[in-house]
């Protein structure tokens, strides 16, 4: 346990007085270096709010977030971030979109050319480097966005339902791509999702969030070998994890 990320009594309330909405928390979570942690919960439970507070992109009402014992105040910049709606800009090609991340950070593009080629190859987008986002399918766009979020080698990657808008088959394929890249680079990942299967397949630990105001119901350590391919997904142990999580949410009446 090295407590790379420490989230302590974090809480968010939107509005005030009669319009007050208690959106999330209080919640305490510790995350170690290289962990792949899924935040799993029904929609509206405040998972995305948690992620934005961790990234310093949203102020918390109370509590704190620390990275390596340093308090987060304002936007954190040594992270990679990805949303359900991707952050590819339509006026740049796939490769230029990945370079946008580097340009905004003032990094030298020349030093990264090889890495860009490699990361595109790892998600089978090497033939689409010079295409514009609107020429790509939704799944390809999300893979490109993943490259954009990872190109600067962030130690922490925050994923907010990145596969939420994709069809089941495409999700399956991209999960495998994510897993491959994560296994190579081993960043610390916080993955927000409402797909139980996705959480179990990808994560080393799943944190179950209750309906709003989101609190932790329980944490489940997923003890399955990586890479988790189809064979692992068909194993009794995998199915058991999925079933036990389903039961928790069934109890809350969300499924």
């Amino acid at each position, binding site marked *: 346990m090295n407590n790379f990320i420490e989230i302590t009594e974090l809480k968010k309330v939107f509005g005030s007085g009669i319009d007050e909405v208690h959106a999330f928390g209080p919640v305490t979570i510790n995350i170690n270096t290289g962990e792949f942690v899924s935040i799993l919960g029904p929609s509206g439970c405040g998972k995305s709010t948690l992620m*934005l507070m961790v*990234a310093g*992109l949203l102020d918390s009402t109370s509590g704190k977030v620390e990275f390596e014992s340093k308090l987060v105040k304002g*936007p*954190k*910049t040594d*992270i990679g*971030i990805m*949303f359900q*709606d*991707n*952050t590819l*800009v*339509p*006026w740049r090609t796939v490769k230029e979109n990945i370079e*946008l*991340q580097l*340009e*905004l*950070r*003032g990094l030298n593009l020349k030093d990264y050319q090889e890495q860009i080629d490699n990361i595109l190859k790892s998600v089978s987008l090497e033939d689409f480097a010079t295409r*514009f986002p*609107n020429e790509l399918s939704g799944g390809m766009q999300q893979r490109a966005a993943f490259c954009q979020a990872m190109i600067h080698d962030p130690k922490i990657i925050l994923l907010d339902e990145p596969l939420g808008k994709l069809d089941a088959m495409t999700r399956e394929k991209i999960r495998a791509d994510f897993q491959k890249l994560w296994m190579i680079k081993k960043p610390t990942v916080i993955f927000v999702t409402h797909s139980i299967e996705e959480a179990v397949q990808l994560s080393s630990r799943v944190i179950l969030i209750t309906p709003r105001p989101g609190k932790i119901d329980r944490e489940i350590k997923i003890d399955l070998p990586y890479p988790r391919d189809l064979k692992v997904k068909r194993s009794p142990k995998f199915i058991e994890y999925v079933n036990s999580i389903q039961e928790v949410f069934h109890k809350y009446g969300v499924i």
Partner: protein
Amino acid sequence: MKKFLKWIASGWMLILFFVGFFLFWEYSIPLFDIPRYILPAPSEIVSKGSADLDKLIYYTGVTALETVLGYVIALVLGLGFGIAISFSSILRRTLYPFFVSIEMTPKIAFAPLFISWFGFGLMPKVIIVVLVCFFPIVLNAILAFNSLSNELTLFYQSTGASTLKTFFKIRLPAALPQCFVGFKYAAINATVGATIAEFIGSDKGLGFYISIVTGNMRPDLAFAGIFFLTCLGLSVFGFVTMMEKILIPWHISMKRINK
């Protein structure tokens, strides 16, 4: 050449329509016995108009100068104020509602006042053109700079990039398509503004020409003037559309038009 042929091939219906329209016009004059001081035939407009060609060309230049000058000033002011209002919460609470309320006023109603204040020269016309062009540009620019997606905003914040850098790399290019909606709308307004300003008080220009020849019962010459005015309007609008294609070739609306 190939492109030209393709253009002809795709535009043949439109060309046919125009040819039919003018033929109908030409032959319905004798057919329905319409007096020429009411509506002249296209052939007469061409023949009488070409006798007045020198004057028409000179007046087109005069109106073009007012239009372009006013448009460019409105563009600079509109974009400048648009960006300033988008980035300043104080201006957003003061200037913005002020502009929105003025937008409800028909700007052209100020034209007689400007003529009486500034005389018959170039300046009042340019001011009126600026006035009718400024509002669509500034209001669309404000809309444009305020509609950046939440995700992109969070993304650039997470990179720690400076305001200037994110402006040129993200906010400005993202705003351009909506800005061009305003630019194009203003381009249409520009010639209208110049023409009406000339109607009200001037001694040269196409608006002046049209009002004089109409008073002399010469609708043929009025139509010749309208033809030149149309050409001027189309040129201004065409130029802005061309700039849009050059500056934002990636924009979806461009692609749809090209198909």
